[in-house]
């Protein structure tokens, strides 16, 4: 059993390009999105993602395959925590073009735009904890379990943050009409 475990270890050594690449392709986008939701800065999120994965590559002989994901997320998180940010988070979203409108009334379209703007602002204004969880759920379609793992909190904590985020947003949405 002992030798099997050892074999498995070298089998999945992150220092092998193929193995590392698989890990990278699996988690890079999620890490990037997660960081982006946190800091609202695409360049910074990109830099941190690269730094974290670079660190994993450089320490490939010290990190287990199983803990690689946790390693990059933790590394990126720590780096972000050290970064100074006093500006209000301004998140920019790429809104996919709306395919159809059931009601072409200009007034209706105007209201839609107002709501869109207001909701985007409200999302950016959400407390970071809520925002990150909410967007990982809505944009990345992560399950609560996955989100809990990524952030390192309990599933209940995820539920609570989602609930609060939704509550804030739906109240706003209700007020606009």
């Amino acid at each position, binding site marked *: 059993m002992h030798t099997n475990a050892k074999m498995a270890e070298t089998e999945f050594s992150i220092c092998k*390009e193929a193995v*590392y*690449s698989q890990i*990278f*392709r699996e988690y*890079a*986008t999620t890490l*990037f*999105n997660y960081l*982006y*939701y946190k800091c609202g800065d*695409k*360049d910074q*999120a*990109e*830099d941190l*993602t*690269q*730094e974290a*994965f*670079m660190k994993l*590559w*450089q320490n490939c002989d010290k990190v287990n395959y199983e803990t690689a994901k946790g390693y990059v997320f933790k590394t990126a998180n*720590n*780096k972000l*925590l*050290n*970064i*100074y*940010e*006093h500006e209000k988070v301004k998140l920019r*979203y*790429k*809104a*996919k073009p*709306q395919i159809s409108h059931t009601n072409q009334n200009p007034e209706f379209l105007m209201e839609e735009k107002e*709501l*869109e703007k207001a*909701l985007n602002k409200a999302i950016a204004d959400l407390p*970071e904890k809520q925002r990150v969880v909410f*967007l990982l*759920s*809505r*944009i*990345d379609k992560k*399950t*609560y379990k996955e989100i809990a793992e990524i952030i390192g909190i309990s599933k*209940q904590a995820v*539920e*609570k943050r*989602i*609930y*609060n985020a*939704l509550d804030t*947003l*739906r*109240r706003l*949405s*209700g007020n606009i*009409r």
Partner: protein
Amino acid sequence: MTNDKLLHKWLNNTLSAEELEIFQKRPEYDSLSRVYKHTENLSSPKLNTEAMLQTILASPKSTALTKSKGSTLNPPRTSTILKKKSKSFSKWMKAGIAASILVLAGYLVMAPTAQDMVNIQLAAGQVKSGKFPDDSRFVLSGNSTLSYDNNSWHKARTVNLKGEANFSVYKGEPFKVMTTEGSIEVLGTKFTVISRDGHFEVKCKEGSVLVKTKKGHTEEVLKPGEMLSIDNDGTFINLRENISRFKNAPLKDAMTVMEKKFRIVFYNTEIDTEQILTCNFQHKNLNQALKTTMTPLGIKYETFGNGQIRIFK
């Protein structure tokens, strides 16, 4: 409330048909739907994963980080620059050299709750000295607050400061001080920073200092003897080894620099030296410098042999 099972199921699209019917009867269903629809249209920025992967795999294992095309990778890049320029000097802890003075105004920015934040808050009249994990020192003045993360100090030495403090910095990882006026990054050096009442000034004494100001959108590396200052009212002064730059600065400041650089003394009885000017002058030619500073203001000057210069209308 937060364990509203139906709500979470609805959000994750795992409601059964009957559950959905029940859920739709809720009064807030309409507004919830709008929020849901809205988020369906959101997407995050695109990340070129393949390019990043190739960059990482292509990089030599042991060296510092590099970045693929695009924006700069901040801390490692600047620390490389500083490493090249700064002189090496051994720990000067007991050398008795005047400590650097770091005075920062602006708003306190607290890093979000991290592993082990150290927070020190002083009321007026108090003073407190302390050590960072790497033995670099600080002396915090009254009416000031200082904070840093104990756990990640060995990776990145970042300090958030409001008010006034004195720092003695060992050579090591980039040492960063954050203020709203700008940021200062050093790699074991001596420097002075004054930030008070909208006036932000950095003077490098030893080593090199990377100054980034927000207002002036400036990013400069200062070598020993060089300084940079910027004010709320748009005054900008940059004194470098070979050239001095003034923007919206009082004439007397330029005169002081000229006196020092050219070893002259101004003699003046009638000129208002508070008047504002904008000019650059190099330090190699006194006449050029005089011409650049005085002539635009309509000031005449007369040179005497002993290094005295008289200015007059």
